[in-house]
């Protein structure tokens, strides 16, 4: 087994989802106990006997056997899942019902339903993400806290409050009513998008943790693509966006482990196969009539991905796409990205003008990239002193060592551009 394959973590989500449907969401803690027990058994037995041929099936069977014990022992004391009705109550039907309910396609469905349950609009987005990471991705509260750079106590509180909200319902989200599915799907998209961005732009200094968050978001989006209920054009656009951005992950750190700016990236290190997959997904995402933020962001990423260098990029197309994006999602951050594209298309002076024209640009003051962008453009106009001042502003609001290291190098570059 490759230790990086996260077998336990990934199986955790599948087992918890299946058991939660069988026990009922109100018995979530019981499902967690059974899963924990299955891992302890796997750990002990595999230590000595080595990995079985099909470790996933081994774990699932162990969980199923434990579930049977629990159901037998507690069926008089507890109410289990109402959707299984009396099937679990009689010894005659119990085993068959369990076999059927652990079939792979049902488990796949359970994962999807669990994902929808976690994205309860009653919960703040950060809580939805914490729940997804905990329940579906098998991360502990401690691992989530260190990935999202938040306090452990805060994450534990969010998770336990989230589980209370889940337990208010006795069953997992039902994928039967098309309108309810469509409504909730947009919340699911948003949560997965934020999860991906946390990995892509987030504050965790560890490159490994960050790409792991990106890959988890992609894995869960793939799950949406695999079900006809949820494989909408918007889902495809989201998947396209993630694939296109993730294709650049290998080039985001230079040989010394420093963050490379988009401009400096060695494009030969981009994952071109993944980018190709992203472009295909985007073409299929265009089948619907709806144009979402995900479509536009993916389209922008696709333009970059097609270009061999910064100079050869179709910046006019990118400015056009940002204009569309601002229409659906007017935000100073998007406007800043647009201004940077304007600078590439029409020159640094026009870029600076576009930055000065951003509505509510004071909201960008605490955003290091805002100051860094001003610095880059001033530097291009040979205004070394102004550039240096902006980079210093950026450094003051930098969020982690990687950003600080990057900005220190830019300050040095600005200093070198000063007339001697």
């Amino acid at each position, binding site marked *: 087994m490759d230790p990086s394959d996260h077998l336990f973590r990934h199986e955790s989500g599948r087992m918890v989802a299946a058991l939660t449907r069988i026990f009922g969401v109100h018995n979530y803690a019981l499902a967690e106990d059974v899963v924990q027990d299955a891992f*302890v058994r796997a*750990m*002990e037995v595999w230590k000595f*006997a*080595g990995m079985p041929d099909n470790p996933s099936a081994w774990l699932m069977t162990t969980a199923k056997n434990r579930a049977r014990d629990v159901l037998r022992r507690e069926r008089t004391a507890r109410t289990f899942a109402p959707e299984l009705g009396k099937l679990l109550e009689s010894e005659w039907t119990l085993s068959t019902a369990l076999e059927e309910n652990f079939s792979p396609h049902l488990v796949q469905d359970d994962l999807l339903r669990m994902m929808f349950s976690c994205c309860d609009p009653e919960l703040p987005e950060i809580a939805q993400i914490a729940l997804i990471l905990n329940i579906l991705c098998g991360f502990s509260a*401690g691992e989530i806290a260190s990935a999202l750079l938040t306090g452990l106590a805060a994450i534990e509180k969010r998770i336990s409050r989230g589980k209370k909200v889940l337990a208010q319902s006795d069953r997992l989200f039902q994928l039967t009513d098309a309108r309810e599915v469509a409504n909730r799907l947009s919340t699911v998209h948003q949560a997965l998008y934020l999860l991906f961005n946390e990995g892509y732009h987030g504050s965790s200094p560890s490159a490994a943790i960050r790409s792991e968050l990106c890959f988890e978001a992609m894995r869960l989006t793939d799950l949406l693509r695999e079900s006809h209920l949820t494989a909408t054009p918007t889902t495809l656009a989201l998947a396209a966006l993630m694939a296109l951005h993730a294709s650049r992950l290998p080039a985001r750190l230079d040989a010394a482990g420093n963050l490379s700016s988009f401009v400096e990236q060695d494009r030969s290190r981009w994952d071109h196969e993944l980018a190709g997959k992203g472009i295909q997904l985007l073409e299929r995402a265009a089948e619907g009539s709806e144009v979402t933020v995900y479509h536009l962001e993916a389209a922008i990423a696709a333009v970059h991905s097609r270009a061999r260098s910064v100079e050869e990029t179709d910046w006019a197309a990118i400015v056009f796409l940002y204009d569309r994006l601002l229409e659906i999602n007017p935000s100073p951050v998007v406007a800043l990205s647009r201004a940077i594209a304007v600078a590439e298309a029409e020159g640094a002076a026009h870029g600076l003008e576009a930055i000065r024209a951003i509505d509510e640009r004071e909201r960008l003051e605490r955003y290091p990239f805002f100051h860094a962008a001003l610095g880059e453009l001033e530097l291009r106009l040979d205004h070394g002193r102004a550039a240096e001042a902006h980079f210093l502003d950026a450094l003051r609001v930098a969020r982690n060592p990687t950003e600080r290291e990057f900005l220190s190098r830019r300050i040095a570059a600005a200093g070198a551009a000063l007339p001697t």
Partner: protein
Amino acid sequence: MSEFLYLYRGSRPSGSPEEMQQVMQKWMNWLSELGSKGHLKAPGHPLEQSGKVVTGKARVVTDGPFAEKDVVGGYSIVEAKSIEEATELANGCPIFDFAGGTVEVRPIMQM
């Protein structure tokens, strides 16, 4: 070559799925390294945490043992030239990553 019994004692680590997978991976690596060097006679078995103890003439049956230091969690049989070498080989056991973990090394008598 002589044979030695390793008795593993110590609490069973629980933690996040990732942590448990890593613990397991370490054990698998350690045992397979012993095997590839020709020291592993039998990888042995894990033991359930709880059991019964039968004591004395009256064959009194009690549950247990429960004290962590007394519970044998599993055993292996290794081959080594001497007790010194067998002890040395036990050094790499991942059980020492957790407080209270021990490996008891017992020479198996020749019959």
